[in-house]
């Protein structure tokens, strides 16, 4: 990946020199995406579908905020990768518990605690 044009090797990268118009466009995009989430909440889709749609929209909102409000896009590309890969790995690792949650929901053998049994 190539660094943004204003990144210097030894200087703090994000210079906050973007135009006010750019910031306002991004602000309006985030507001619009937040509005879409409220629309999804009342759509006729089942809960799983609503969750998936809202999650994708939240990811888009967060991406805009990370890249432009927090200026990650203007930092060195190595730093951008570091933040995304490191955070993504930690968050992905947390999803391990879903298998157990689904087992409990479906009541498969040994998914519930055996009350009163001695092991």
């Amino acid at each position, binding site marked *: 990946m190539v660094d943004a044009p204003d*990144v*210097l*090797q*030894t*200087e*703090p*990268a*994000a*210079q*906050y*020199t*973007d135009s*006010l118009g750019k*910031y*306002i466009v991004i*602000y309006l995009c*985030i*507001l619009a995406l*937040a509005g879409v*989430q*409220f629309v*999804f*909440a*009342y759509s006729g889709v089942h*809960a799983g579908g*609503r*969750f998936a749609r*809202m*999650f994708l*929209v*939240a990811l888009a*909102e*967060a991406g805009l*905020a*990370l890249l432009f*409000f*927090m200026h990650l896009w203007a*930092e*060195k590309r*190595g*730093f951008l990768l*570091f*933040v995304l890969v*490191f*955070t993504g790995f*930690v*968050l992905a690792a*947390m*999803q391990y*518990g*879903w298998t*157990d*949650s*689904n087992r*409990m*929901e479906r009541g498969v053998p040994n998914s519930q605690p055996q009350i009163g049994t001695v092991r």
Partner: protein
Amino acid sequence: MSQADMAMHHPGGVMTEPAFAVPARKMAIWLFIIADAATFAACLVAYGFLRNGSPSWPAPFKFSPTVINAMVMTFILITSSLTMLLGVRAGKAGDRAAAFRFTVITAVAGIVFALLHLREWMGMIHEGVTLFHNPWGTGLFGASFFSITGLHLTHVVGGVVALLVVGGRYKAGRMDADHLEVVGLYWHFVDLVWMFVVPFVYLLNVSR
């Protein structure tokens, strides 16, 4: 410059280039943000785990007042992110007065957000929702709702205090624009977390 030269100029030890050319202070807040993102993610995943595994999970949030309140709070928080950004931008450009003004506006928005949040909490408590009980179904609903929104509210209150302290010291000339940038990154993160709290905690539980 050789390492020997660097050691001579910095007798405390050999200085190396900052990682990714990011200054230490900014790197520290980014590492904090990554760690805090893991904290919030753990809470949201645990909430999803409970919700998924509880057959009587309630959907109590009515359009008025709860969803409207969430809309207003979302608007305020996203707008405060913009004012924070404008404050840091002004600070980087050397305009201390404008930077301080935008920082105070951001802090005021944070206070309004917190007050709206507390008003909503009071309404729910009045309806009988507590940490361990609610009138609609599993008691875990109240525990997860107050835990997640409470953790976020704590961050907002902490952010308001940080904004006022750093803004005041920046205005007095005891801090520079880099300090403002660091507190700004924290504030944007608080906004970013709210983008996930609203759909998962509020909008998936609206009454139809």
